[in-house]
């Protein structure tokens, strides 16, 4: 068997294992170990696996991940996400679909202190889904608004996916965070516009409730502690006061302080947030370990290089190859989860992309948008699963149907990124 065929077989095996409900990290690791054993020998597979878990678990740079997750968990445990949603719904009252739009706005705002999309979606589901059900919103519409809004968690900084991309591409994480800020806001607006447009369809959104102007002004004051946290952490990174790791620690610590000062955080809630942060980050770390083992093997099969050489033989233009890369990410995103995708593809694609003269920071933003799209594309979209897990009586079909219109937004953003790369590159050029 040629290495190329072995690589193709391995990908087939991976998808089969994933479909048969094997944990993502187990599937990645097992296929990587077996593949490496066949391609080389057992000793090689052992060296790679035994060191991958140890090196990942003791990597200083990856410590940002649990710290940003902790900050998000504490913010949600001290009801900050609820306050954000509360403020947004008052501000958007009077608009048809106001609650759905508010859940997207609140997700975007919460994404500004939470590094994970799944955590953002999970937090917002708990708060916004019951409210929308009570108000008579269509369930598919309500849930898919949260799924779409939640995906902003990894585009609006801080972002765990950008931390991992920065590690693979050897780029400054602070710069990547700066680059993803404007595209994140654009996507936020696009999602809100789609939710607004969808609300006109009968049955999805009830007649809006009106509130007074003074209510709205009062609502604006609510999320001050949240803005403070954002300014201190992300602002601190941009101002060069903190490294991303320090910002995450200070942010988590600050959220604890604020929670206790405002009496919205209790000791049991703090312990719960700590434990959840540990459990969530350990599940992510295992995927990093699995993806490291798998990508080590797949790189050796030269599968990506061979595919690329084939497309180069066909003398495709830079634009066609970029379109091909985007298409590959979209297809992969339908079936894989984000961290694995980044670790497997970026080492292969990045040299080509920069070879065409594209900026690696810009490419990082593009990849995050594509990963974000993957979070909400059927059949495998982590955000869809997270919401469905919390709203068990929601049918998967309703969710798939509800999410379809929202998929337009990331695609529009991708087109915008190609048309105007400065959308991503302007802010870092000003800040650095």
């Amino acid at each position: 068997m040629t290495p190329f065929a072995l690589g193709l077989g391995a990908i087939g095996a991976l998808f089969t294992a994933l479909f048969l409900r094997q944990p993502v990290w187990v599937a990645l690791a097992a296929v990587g170990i077996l593949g490496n054993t066949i391609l080389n020998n057992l000793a090689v597979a052992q060296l790679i696996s035994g060191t991958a878990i140890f090196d990942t678990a003791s990597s200083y740079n990856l410590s940002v991940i649990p710290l940003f997750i902790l900050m998000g968990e504490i913010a949600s445990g001290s009801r900050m996400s609820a306050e954000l949603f509360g403020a947004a719904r008052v501000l958007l009252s009077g608009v048809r679909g106001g609650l759905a739009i508010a859940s997207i706005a609140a997700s975007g705002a919460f994404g500004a202190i939470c590094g994970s999309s799944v955590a953002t979606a999970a937090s917002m589901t708990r708060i916004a889904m019951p409210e929308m059900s009570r108000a008579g919103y269509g369930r598919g519409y309500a849930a898919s608004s949260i799924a779409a809004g939640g995906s902003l968690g990894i585009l609006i900084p801080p972002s765990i996916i950008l931390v991992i991309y920065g590690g693979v591409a050897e780029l400054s994480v602070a710069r990547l965070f700066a680059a993803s800020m404007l595209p994140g806001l654009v996507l936020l607006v696009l999602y809100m516009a789609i939710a607004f447009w969808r609300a006109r369809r009968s049955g999805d959104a009830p007649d809006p409730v009106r509130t007074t102007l003074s209510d709205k002004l009062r609502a604006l004051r609510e999320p001050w502690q949240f803005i403070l946290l954002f300014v201190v952490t992300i602002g601190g990174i941009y101002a060069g006061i903190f490294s991303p790791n320090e910002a995450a620690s200070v942010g988590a610590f600050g959220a604890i302080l604020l929670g206790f000062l405002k009496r919205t955080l209790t000791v049991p809630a703090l312990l719960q947030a700590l434990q959840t942060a540990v459990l969530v980050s350990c599940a992510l770390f295992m995927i990093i370990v699995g993806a490291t083992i798998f990508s080590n093997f797949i790189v050796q099969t030269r599968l990506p290089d061979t595919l690329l050489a084939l497309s180069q033989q066909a003398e495709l233009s830079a634009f066609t190859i970029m379109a091909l890369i985007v298409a590959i990410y979209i297809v992969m995103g339908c079936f894989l989860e984000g961290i694995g995708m980044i670790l497997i593809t970026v080492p292969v694609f990045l040299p080509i992309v920069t070879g065409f003269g594209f900026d690696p920071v810009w490419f990082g933003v593009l990849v995050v948008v594509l990963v974000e799209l993957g979070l909400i594309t059927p059949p495998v979209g982590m955000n869809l699963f997270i919401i469905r897990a919390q709203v068990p009586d929601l049918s998967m079909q309703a969710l798939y149907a509800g999410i379809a219109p929202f998929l337009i937004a990331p695609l529009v953003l991708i087109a915008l990124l190609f048309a105007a790369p400065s959308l991503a590159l302007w802010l870092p050029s000003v800040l650095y």
Partner: protein
Amino acid sequence: MSVDRPRQSLPKIMLWVASAALVVMMSVTVLDVILRFAFRIPVRGAYDVVSFSLLIMVFFGLAPVIARAGEITIDLIDYMVSPRVLVLLETLATCAAFAVFVFLGWSMISPAQDAYKWGGHSLELGMPVWWLWAVAFVGLSGILWVCLRRLIADIGRLRTAATRGPAPERSRT
């Protein structure tokens, strides 16, 4: 994400250790920042302590993830097959996870021995690297134990399912 606290005591204890490591990670960094601003002196070894705490967090935090079957899974198939097949697939997943952990543990022996033999040490504090490996093995034995417990429980459910039809719901994230 909601947390069902694991009911067994071993994963519970390990979760506390991992949470404490996360607190250390945060506190050392915050202390480092404060000292830097107040006195312009960095905490010597903050880098090492953070890496070390992360290692503890991961190796001790995994057992509770396994105990509650909290690994990220693509559960598309859940709506296509009977509960009995589902239990079978879940048991298969636990077997596979156990096998991979055994393989990882076996593979960790040789680099750990190297770390001991060659006397490598950490960057800032000069701490022997084999200490970290020792901690990793302690965590790993907990992981294997919990994995085994889950496997036994799964096989139990499998037998129940085989004789009495649908399996009881298992908590999932």
